[in-house]
């Protein structure tokens, strides 16, 4: 083939980034629409909210005005951000353990059908039992920080396990034949074929697990309630609710939402960075 001229360049190749051209032509307007509109909605909502509170003179323990919430956010910043860090730390540990445990168990299952048949039903039971119902029991058994971490882990674990299992099973049959042809060992097959093929599913699982880990941490902190010695954001919410400090509840709630969005955003970014060279999901225009 050395002499044959190269084929007319990649006929079937959709120019990468083609769908983005529409955006690139008017980047300023596109960006304004994508980020500006939601922010505009937020601003309008806050103004309406502020007006309602002001016009009807709603007391702060029923509905604090946005300004009051913002003031609390600034005044209580040391307390609230300290709590945010505690919750985020739990979330991060729960997530890391879920990724390691879920992916690890899925890999074990892929190597031993026997083990999978034996244990998979219990993984499902762990998933379908509401974590709110399990939390009090864990709080009796375990020191509170460990119990909270365990709850975060329980809810985040299953999506990782399920997605990795599915990913490891969805290997292209011809590629599998090719590995058989060259006498690939189990380890070679796992490392060079199954894990890379499973990666997109694993990253999708991780994105779900990150959000759920936060949910698990919050649920456990709430379950621990005022009896707990914790200091996470959800604990602040419970505590503020007993003291009828509603502005602080709102402030903590806002921080939790922002934390959830940040976790999702970070994991989406990581997923995009890892897959951008080859996977369709990262190549087609994202959100």
């Amino acid at each position: 083939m050395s002499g044959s001229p190269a084929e007319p360049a990649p006929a079937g190749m959709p120019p990468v980034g083609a769908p983005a051209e529409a955006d690139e032509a008017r980047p300023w307007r596109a960006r304004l629409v994508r980020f500006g509109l939601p922010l505009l909605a937020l601003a309008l909502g806050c103004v309406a909210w502020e007006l309602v509170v002001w016009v009807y003179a709603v007391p702060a323990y029923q509905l604090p005005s946005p300004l009051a919430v913002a003031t609390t956010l600034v005044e209580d910043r040391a307390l609230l951000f300290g709590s945010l860090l505690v919750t985020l730390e739990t979330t991060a540990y729960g997530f890391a353990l879920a990724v390691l445990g879920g992916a690890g168990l899925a890999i074990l299952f892929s190597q031993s059908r026997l083990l999978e048949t034996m244990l998979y039903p219990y993984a499902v039971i762990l998933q379908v039992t509401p974590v709110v119902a399990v939390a009090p029991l864990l709080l009796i058994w375990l020191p509170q920080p460990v119990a909270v971490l365990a709850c975060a882990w329980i809810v985040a674990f299953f999506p990782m396990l399920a997605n990795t299992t599915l990913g490891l099973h969805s290997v292209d049959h011809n590629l599998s034949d090719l590995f058989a042809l060259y006498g690939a060992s189990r380890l070679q097959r796992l490392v060079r074929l199954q894990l890379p093929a499973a990666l997109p599913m694993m990253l999708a699982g991780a994105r779900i697990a990150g959000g759920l880990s936060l949910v698990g941490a919050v649920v456990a902190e709430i379950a621990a309630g005022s009896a707990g010695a914790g200091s996470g954001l959800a604990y602040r919410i419970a505590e503020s609710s007993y003291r009828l400090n509603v502005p602080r509840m709102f402030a903590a709630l806002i921080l939790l939402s922002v934390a959830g969005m940040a976790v999702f955003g970070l994991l989406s970014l990581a997923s995009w960075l890892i897959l951008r060279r080859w996977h369709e999901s990262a190549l087609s225009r994202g959100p």
Partner: protein
Amino acid sequence: MSSPAVVALRAVTKAFPNGTRALDGLDLTVRRGEFLSLLGPSGCGKSTALRLIAGLSRPSGGAVVWGDGAPKAAPARGDLGVVFQEPTLMPWASVAANVRLPLQLTRRADVAEPRVRAALARVGLDGFAEAYPRELSGGMKMRVAIARALVTDPALLLMDEPFAALDEITRFRLDNALLGLWQELGKTVVFVTHSVFEAVYLSTRIVVMTPRPGRVAADIAIDAPFPRSETFRTSAEFAALCRTVGGALADAMGETFA
């Protein structure tokens, strides 16, 4: 044909669990250095025969015999190259990494780099080592698959309708490239196709198969000299050969429908 046998199928039968008898008493000898095409309609077991030779499935009856039949005549890993119907590339790996795979799996990674470069140069893809499969056209992906099959320097190359999904222009170009490689490297090729024209253009011998169950219906030597080119493709000799082979194929199909 007097060259020694590379591999022979002896009265091979293949039945699948669902009851389909894909092959029934297939006798076929592949001789060293030949370009053998298996020609037949879909479902005649051509691909099944190829998978049996590749060792990807086992015959239900009969035997696959290598070389002179001595036990150690069976091919070592990497003595066989296979090109599938689809390019079957790892989408997560660069072109070079895809071509390197057989060397890594057979633990010869130490000699990989020069071999990978040579294989890519041979299929005319020098500049594409770092590209990813999705950035390539269908024809280029197929070239990568051929480079990957050649990288272990196998004696026998098995090709399962490799160009069936490509447009005709690309297909002709790859046919020519493949013939060039075959002449240059002196490999034995078993090529599965359902195109009479492609089979006649490429082969030194064509085995026509009957559908369900697959058996040999005709064994036709194509003696036209090499190198073959567009001149051959448009010659009266080519047309006559196509008529003969096409007739044999029609007979093979007629037998089962009658």
